């Protein structure tokens, strides 16, 4: 029930725009007279990287502040790689896996861990699965050995798969209850296509088709990939290295996962609509295809995002929230993912009656990227915002470790953050105007509105972008499930 002011800035970094005229008047700026001393010297503590002969990589990050040890093993391969007829498999795998140790069954494992205030979790993501754990230092050997048991000797049970299927089914039948969930999901489908590996959704039929053998096959197929092991906390590095070598060195040479070659056509332009009768606010999503981080234009795009929708004083926030009072939640930017195109996404949540006005205001800001040239002031502000808060990306040893694991996983150089920062510093106004021209194509965007049809007046036709095409979000009910539901 806590209310967050500005909690819905979408790309939370920061960017500020002075409105024209701000400098016309003589403003005494007392804050500029406050000294800003040199920042205390800081060398983020890098983890030790150990590459085994078989290609498995281990990171050890010591941190002796508190008596805990945590770790994880990341395995390449995730939901995007699963059989479309069994969509949801990786999610089910992630849930059922943790209860399938050979040494202890799931319930006994829970009893043991909870008594020690320790945790072992497994999970499945779009491109990877992982087992992770944490415990007090004194229990860390035992918890590590239980986690490794899950990794090397899983014993999937029908009972725990069924439990995971029930939970997944609950999520599926509830997925149209929350307007924001519908908007996020359906707009991504507009961008990538409904059957894309990035957006296909689990259905009752596809999760029902998953068997214990499927989970085993998935595990066997992925466990030979390039594992990344990371440990942080209060441990002795030599002893930990020895333990991990003993566990991982006997494994065969890793099989490098071939990279994917997916087609990304981007959305069909136009207006799309989903009616929801129990709401009084529209979720408007304006979406298109983004890029990936290897693109050398990403630093300039990041600065552009700052100016468009990154913070309290971004163009979107200033215009739609502060000046017009049309929304609490507004933001967006041109997205970039690590190894595939992200999404361009601008979202605004506004009362039904102002749907058209707010959509037009957001579209005007998107157009403005190409027809309202960026100013030196905007550039300076965006850079200040990004660069002065940059150290929050590595201000804890845990963050440094997580970043290194990420870079290793996606095959980026270990000094990526430094080179990225240096590239941000070099971004110029002509760079901004150039990337806006290159990547922002309002005519290629799709507009999705989820809202209360009869309340939306003026209607979406007033956008003058063609008829609003209805999106069917009916949840397919397999015969058996439908009967059970009655």
């Amino acid at each position, binding site marked *: 029930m806590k209310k967050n002011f500005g909690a819905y800035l979408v790309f939370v970094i920061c960017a500020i725009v002075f409105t024209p005229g701000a400098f016309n008047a003589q403003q005494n700026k007392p804050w500029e007279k406050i000294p800003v001393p040199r920042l205390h010297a800081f060398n983020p503590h890098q983890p030790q990287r150990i590459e085994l002969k078989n290609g498995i990589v281990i990171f050890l990050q010591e941190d002796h502040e508190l008596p805990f040890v945590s770790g994880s093993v990341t395995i390449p391969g995730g939901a995007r790689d699963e059989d479309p007829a069994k969509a949801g498999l990786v999610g089910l795998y992630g849930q059922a896996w943790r209860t399938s140790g050979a040494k202890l069954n799931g319930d006994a494992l829970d009893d043991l861990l909870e008594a020690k205030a320790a945790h072992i979790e497994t999970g499945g993501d779009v491109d990877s699965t992982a087992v992770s754990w944490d415990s007090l230092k004194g229990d860390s050997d035992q918890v590590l050995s239980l986690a490794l048991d899950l990794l090397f000797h899983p014993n999937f049970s029908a009972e725990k798969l069924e439990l995971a299927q029930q939970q997944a089914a609950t999520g599926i039948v509830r997925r149209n209850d929350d307007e924001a969930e519908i908007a996020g999901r359906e707009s991504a489908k507009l961008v990538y296509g409904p059957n894309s590996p990035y957006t296909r959704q689990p259905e009752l039929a596809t999760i029902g088709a998953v068997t214990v053998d499927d989970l085993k096959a998935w595990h066997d197929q992925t466990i030979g990939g390039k594992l990344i092991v990371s440990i942080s906390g209060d441990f002795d590095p030599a002893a930990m290295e020895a333990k991990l070598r003993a566990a991982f060195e006997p494994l065969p040479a890793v099989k490098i996962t071939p990279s994917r070659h997916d087609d990304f056509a981007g959305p069909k332009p136009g207006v799309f609509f989903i009616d929801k009768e129990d709401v009084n606010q529209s979720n408007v999503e304006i979406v298109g295809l983004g890029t990936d981080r290897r693109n050398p234009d990403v630093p300039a795009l990041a600065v552009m995002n700052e100016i468009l929708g990154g913070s309290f004083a971004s163009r979107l926030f200033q215009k739609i*929230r502060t000046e017009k009072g049309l929304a609490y939640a507004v933001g967006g930017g041109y997205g970039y993912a690590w190894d595939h195109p992200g999404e361009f996404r601008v979202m605004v949540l506004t009362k039904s009656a102002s749907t058209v006005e707010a959509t037009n205001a957001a579209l005007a800001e998107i157009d403005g990227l190409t027809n309202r040239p960026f100013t030196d002031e905007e550039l300076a502000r965006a850079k200040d915002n990004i660069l002065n808060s940059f150290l929050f990306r590595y201000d804890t040893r845990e963050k440094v470790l997580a970043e290194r694991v990420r870079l290793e996983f996606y095959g980026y150089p270990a000094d990526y953050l430094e080179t990225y920062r240096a590239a941000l510093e070099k971004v110029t106004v002509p760079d901004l105007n150039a990337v806006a021209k290159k990547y922002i194509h309002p005519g290629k965007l799709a507009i999705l509105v989820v809202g209360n049809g009869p309340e939306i007046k003026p209607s979406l036709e007033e956008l003058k972008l063609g008829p609003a095409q209805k999106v069917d979000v009916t949840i397919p009910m397999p015969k058996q499930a439908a009967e059970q539901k009655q």
Partner: protein
Amino acid sequence: MQSTRFPWIWKGVWALMLAALMLTGAHAQDLKSFEQRITTKVLPNGLTLIICERPEAPVFSYSTFVDAGDVNDPSGESGLAHMFEHLAFKGTSEIGTTDYSAEKIALEKVEAANNAYEAEYLKAVGRDEKKLAELKQKFIDAQTEAHKYVIPNQFTDVAERNGAEGLNAETGLDETKYFWSMPENRLELWAWLESGRLADVAPREFYKERDVVNEERRMSVDSNPIGRLVEQFVATAYVAHNYGRSHIGWPSEVQQITATEAMEFHKKYYVGSNIVIAVVGDVKASEALPVLERYFSKIPAGPKPEEMTTVEPKQFAEKTVAIREQTQPFYIEGYHRPDYHSPDDAVFDAIQDILSNGRVSRLYRSLVRDQQIAAEAAGFSPFPGEKYPSLFAFYAVPLPGHTPAQMRDAIHKEIEKLKTADVSDEELAMFKTRTRADLLRGLANNQGLANDLAEYQTRYGDWRELFLQLDKVDKVSKADIRRVTNEIFVSSNRTEAWIETEPAAAGKTAQQGGGAQ
């Protein structure tokens, strides 16, 4: 108050204080040093500053904790504390304006225009629609005039350009919190910004911001099935105390809150004695305190606002709320419980932990694992606030094909077990171990630690209570759990609320719709 931080630490501090136990090993030394790293100072205006030195990286986090929230909103003005919180991002007489003396006059005209409009609008008899339209236009014109002096978002602009991270605020029923993190070399700049907005906030752009807050309500309550259910649930559970009011505010009341009312709220509640500020990070108390003292001394002194007199009367009738709509079923129930000063506060924590914490919890094992009727089930407390007598609530999310009534019956069965049989030694030990470990885990986070220090200082008058709480946790017995369960979890003290799914009307499905004709 649910305290779940700092277990071993507490052990350490307690042992040192009593000089009864000798803790050995490196961590015990760290724990000892932890208390030595905290400096507390009460300024002449009554404001309390807490500095905790944690030089892990050249950054700091702060938390400003104002002991006033929406529970303090006057009658007819629900949502006022939250509206003021939004105003506190709009700048001061020194920032966010091109000419404050001229802006001030223009803002006074906005208030006069709003008052004239509201007076006509609220006329029960003889409201003149033409005059109303004119007055509305005058009100809009006055805002346009005042806006000429505004530099929008300059306050947040300066903070963000100087590296502010996680800049935000939260208005609870009990308190209002402001917070962010920054590079350590901006400490003085932060002190200027924060002390300025606490002492000298300007009532600018208020009415546009009111529209923003109305959108916030639509998002979090009106257009969200669980938001709607919870608002009705709490409103039904309470008959007298302000905890029963809409947290974000009833729409008609929010729509009529004025800048003048927000400034009155500020004058009454934003006084030194009602504010605690905690700073955690790469900060040296010896150097920082004199600087902070200089800035934060400008916050007005004033009497600690009087506590409210309303006490929720004892419930004697079981109450229910049923929402029938085309969303999936959900169940929630609550029982009145005492406030955090109750000697049984930790007993409630124990009940919550044993029923709800993780996959070994009774509700998970019963409703989720064994009966397979729910996707989730848990109890939580205190709710919706903690400063005043609140609720111990339970909720469950039914699996497809299962009903709220099944959730209710299954929860009641677990509650009955607690009443009639002792919890096991293992369950009680697990609660105590996990509480300790969770508290300790929280120590490694500047922002979390700043929030906790400020909160405990406010609620108990001493941040050390953060650690001393563990003593109460250790003393919880099986008999306490049975006694409290039998006292509190009775039907006459209960409010139940649920959503049941109403089938779509014939010929119309939830996905079909009028759309944008």
